[in-house]
């Protein structure tokens, strides 16, 4: 899932202080699991802003709300009219949610209420770790299920580098060397010999290309377009 982390309240205050009517809008999927931007956290942020506004003697209406997901219109469409009544939406969804809502909300600014950190997992309660960088061309079958793009400090394809120190990365004793883990894992799986092949230079266009990357499922697109046409021919608007 997407892991987010809280922004310092100072930074949030700087963003919101000149608005009169602010909605802190939470997302109850990924960022709720990591306690950064669910409805509960939106509520907390809203009350922190209210306290701050009172301290500074600013008249400001601050409310909160939450929906299941900010990345699919069907979840926020039902509340969109309500959301549009505000001067500012401070979204505590991930950056995807902030972008997506911005495009659909009309003339209300949507600001980021949290930092979107990475794609990660719950390593232990309250501890999250990045495990994938969404590079668009997964090679985990070649690296024992351990991602060198996200987890090696240098995104090496043919590691380890000379900096591995007692299983740790040269960058810090706190960071496991991804390539140390890869070698040890493949040893256990009996597939270490596969690592003697040089992995060629990657085509990074799957990772960072011109404009946003898109995935299009043709069968679903075709079906949708057919349906839309039917509705059009019937002279109506698709619900």
């Amino acid at each position, binding site marked *: 899932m997407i892991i987010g982390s809280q922004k310092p309240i100072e930074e949030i205050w700087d963003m919101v202080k000149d608005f009169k009517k602010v909605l802190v809008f939470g997302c109850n999927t990924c960022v709720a699991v990591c306690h950064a931007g669910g409805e509960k956290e939106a509520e907390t942020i809203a009350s922190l802003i209210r306290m701050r506004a009172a301290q500074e003697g600013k008249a400001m209406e601050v409310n909160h709300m939450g929906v299941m997901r900010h990345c699919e219109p069907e979840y926020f469409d039902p509340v969109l009219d309500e959301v549009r009544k505000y001067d500012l939406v401070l979204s505590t969804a991930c950056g995807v949610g902030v972008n997506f809502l911005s495009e659909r909300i009309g003339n209300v600014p949507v600001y980021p209420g949290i930092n979107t950190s990475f794609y990660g997992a719950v390593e232990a309660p309250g501890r999250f770790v990045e495990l994938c960088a969404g590079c668009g061309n997964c090679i985990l079958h070649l690296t024992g299920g351990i991602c060198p793009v996200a987890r090696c*400090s*240098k*995104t*090496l*394809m*043919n*590691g*380890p*580098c*000379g*900096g*591995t*120190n*007692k*299983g740790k990365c*040269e*960058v*810090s004793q706190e960071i496991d060397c991804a390539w*140390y883990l890869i*070698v*040890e894992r493949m040893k256990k799986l009996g597939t*270490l010999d596969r*690592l*003697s092949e*040089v*992995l*060629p*230079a*990657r085509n*990074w266009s799957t990772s960072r290309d011109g404009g946003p990357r898109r995935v299009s499922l043709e069968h679903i697109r075709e079906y949708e377009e057919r349906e839309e046409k039917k509705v059009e021919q019937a002279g109506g608007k698709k619900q």
Partner: protein
Amino acid sequence: MKSGSNLERVIMSGRPAVTAELGPPMSADPHEVMKKANILRGFCDAANITDCQTAVVRMSSIAAAVIALREGLEPVMQMTCRDRNRIAMQADLLGAAALGLKNCLCLAGDHQKFSAAGKLKGHPGAKNVYDVDTCQLVGILKKMRDEGLQEGGDKLEAAPKLFVGASWTPMADPIDFRPVNLLKKVNAGADFIQTQGIYDVEGFRSQMEKIRNMGLHERTAILGGIIVPKSAMMLKYMDSSVAGVSVPKSLINRMNKAKEEAGDDKKKAKELQEAEGIKITVELIHQVLETPGVRGVHIQAIEWESAIEKIVKAAGLYPRPDIPEV
């Protein structure tokens, strides 16, 4: 000959090669490079010109290499994968070759965090590149030189004739994977290898035995790395903190003894330790060169270039062979 560089000629002659290291200054003044080049000239076959080592901004390796070349010292330009994508890399390689450079050492490069590890502010917030890694860069260079093709497949009108090197840390963990690590660099096309500094000669020899069994010593020229110790403190630091370097107790004890002999006299302590450091270096050079499969030494006297003359002479490696271009 792949490049016709002096380093390649010496290696091909079968005589033990000697490379040294020249660190460019944090300055736009060429004189520092000229000075160091003149200190090293004649005492090594080529000198590595580091590429923003520890991620600290210094005069670029290519520029400093050209200055060294003009002073009559053959440079080994270094190129890290940290700061350039494949477009910049290939452009720089063409430019370097056009300027007369003939050796290139490919490296991953220290992570940008290192730039702020010491007293400097550095650039720990820089974005690193790592478009390609060392093995891939070696492969790109080989393809440019041997096939006259860019990585993307476009033709080069004139190929860069570079002798391609890579580094190797024989004793970092996972230790049993390190020979495979070298195999990959050799398969990618590394003509020569400079190793991380060796103090634990026994450990190095046992890795070299595996290398010989794989036949790698015949497919690439391995130059054993020697880092000249300056003080007991430096040896202890290297032992505890530098990846893939372990220093036998006996060497640390020898340096400690040299230090203690000076009593409270700080200046003398420095002199005695430096003298012992040079002695240890000469012994290490002999032990490394006696190891079957080793074709030379890479001597790093970090910020102490003036030690090289003494070391090379004491090791019986002077004068350096003069092998004419054919």
